[in-house]
């Protein structure tokens, strides 16, 4: 147990230390989410108008963009392992008296802190977009972002545990990231789409992550629109077998998935020589 804890903190410490020194990554991970927010927002906002009373397209998309920022940063946990393997540092880690489970947990912990931090930085855009945020919302958001980050870090490490080259991992990441993002309800509600698209989206774990964050944001904003009795959040939410997922249920889906992915990641990482 002692070696698991020491491994967790020492690996997390190093990843954070390194992140601070790595300026390009600090800014790079905002590029894609911001690009989507600005271009799609500018391009579609006027045509689409309100998706629900008091919620225009940018406001609808914005929580999804935060989830996307967390996703991109979480998958970096995998890239950092491949990077360390390629540049030799992983050997220094593997011959140290550290538990392999602890090493994986440390990668997850370090990257989750970074991912949550980056997600929260995106909150600075809220006033510009016209989304109300307050302290309570931020407090609610942190554990949710944490759950999303843990499951996706697990996915990143699972993908990376046998990968030997960064190029290979980057390709795999692109193949996985794009569908994950486009089919997660970031850009459109997944209920009012062709059946095939709906089915695929509902198998996508990120859908539930996006949905929790959106609910945290929009519930406050929607109730402010007086028409609280209408089912406006219903139309934008995720329905599984006729049941609309609430924040807790969404989070549970992500948490269960996170445990599975993380266990697989630990198993796969521990078996390598």
């Amino acid at each position, binding site marked *: 147990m002692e070696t698991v804890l020491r491994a967790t903190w020492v690996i997390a410490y190093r990843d954070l230390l390194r992140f601070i020194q790595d300026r390009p990554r600090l800014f790079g991970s905002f590029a894609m989410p911001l690009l989507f927010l600005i271009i799609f927002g500018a391009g579609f906002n006027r045509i689409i108008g309100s998706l629900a009373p008091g919620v225009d397209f940018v406001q609808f998309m914005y929580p999804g963009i935060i989830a996307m920022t967390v996703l991109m940063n979480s998958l970096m946990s995998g890239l950092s392992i491949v990077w360390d393997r390629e540049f*030799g540092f*992983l050997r220094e880690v593997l011959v140290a008296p550290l538990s392999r489970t602890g090493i994986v947990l440390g990668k997850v912990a370090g990257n989750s802190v970074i991912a949550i931090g980056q997600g929260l930085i995106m909150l600075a855009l809220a006033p510009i977009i016209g989304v109300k945020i307050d302290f309570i919302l931020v407090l609610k958001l942190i554990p949710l972002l944490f759950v999303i980050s843990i499951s996706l870090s697990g996915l990143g490490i699972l993908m990376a545990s046998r990968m030997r080259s960064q190029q290979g991992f980057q390709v795999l990441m692109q193949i996985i990231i794009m569908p994950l993002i486009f089919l997660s309800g970031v850009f459109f509600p997944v209920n009012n789409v062709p059946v095939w698209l709906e089915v695929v989206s509902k198998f996508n774990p990120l859908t539930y992550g996006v949905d929790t964050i959106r609910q945290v944001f929009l519930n406050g904003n929607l109730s402010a629109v007086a028409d609280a009795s209408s089912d406006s959040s219903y139309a934008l939410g995720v329905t599984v077998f006729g049941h609309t997922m609430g924040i807790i249920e969404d989070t549970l889906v992500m948490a269960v998935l996170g445990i599975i992915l993380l266990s697989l990641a630990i198993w796969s990482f521990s078996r390598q020589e």
Partner: protein
Amino acid sequence: MDNGTNIIEIHDLTKKFGQITAVDSISFNVYKGEIFGFLGPNGAGKTTTINMLCTLLTPTSGRATVSGYDTSKQRRQVQRIIGLVFQDPTLDDYLTAEQNLRFHAYAYGVPKNIREERLDQLLELVELSDRRKGKVSTYSGGMKRRLEIARGLLHHPQILFLDEPTLGLDPQTRHYVWEHIHALRKQEDLTIFMTTHYMDEAENCDRIAVIDQGKIIALDTPDNLKDSLGGDVVILEAEDSQKAMLELEGKYNLSPQLQDQTITFSVPHGETFLPELMRSFQSKIVSISVHGPTLDDVFLKLTGHAIRDQEADAWAQFRRMMPH
């Protein structure tokens, strides 16, 4: 040196990668406090052996103990008492020298009260104190290697493994690294286990195991290995190598070896043998030289090929394909 205690014991250690046997049932002991050299061409199985000793690879069969701990069953205990310097750098380039060392100290659980003092002392030893706050990416190859040696010692290991510690360094830096290794052994009461394919470096070791194609073919002190040649080494080129070989074997009762038109053999006293040979040798000699025995000669004698010829053979290619 305490010849009585074995710090490493290896019994029938074997590692196979698929059909290929990289290390073939080797057995030997390393004494506490010595500099033990593992000498062989690239791809002979040196790094594979080190990787098994430092718990990175699980042996296919056989066993090895380090300070009494089994390297595949008691990994954690083994990891705590060994320090490693690998062939390829394993530093984090984005961090400073200090940060790299601190990471290591945390990972090995070096107590806080001795950590900073130890750090200062080691940076002093490898003469990097003035660059301690510099990022490793700005370091030269030699500085990186010295930093890795300092890092390998940070947690007071009993044994330091050095895998080709001077590979890719210029002669001046190589000399410098060796000075550090000797200084270390005096200061730290260390056992050093190192691999090399530089013969002149192997001379620095107390004992040498010669490994070729996964097997140990000799193990002794450098002096004894050289003495085993039976005197000085004569290198001779003749117009007709085959004829010269026959004559050396028949008339002089020698056991010469032929490689690329060059004939090599040993005689007890080279200086007196040469004039005699010049007088009575029938074949036409193109060139001839004599020198005191070196480990290169030992290797040639033991394996029938020179150590550097092997660099590109199938074994070496296979090794390069293997994950580190």
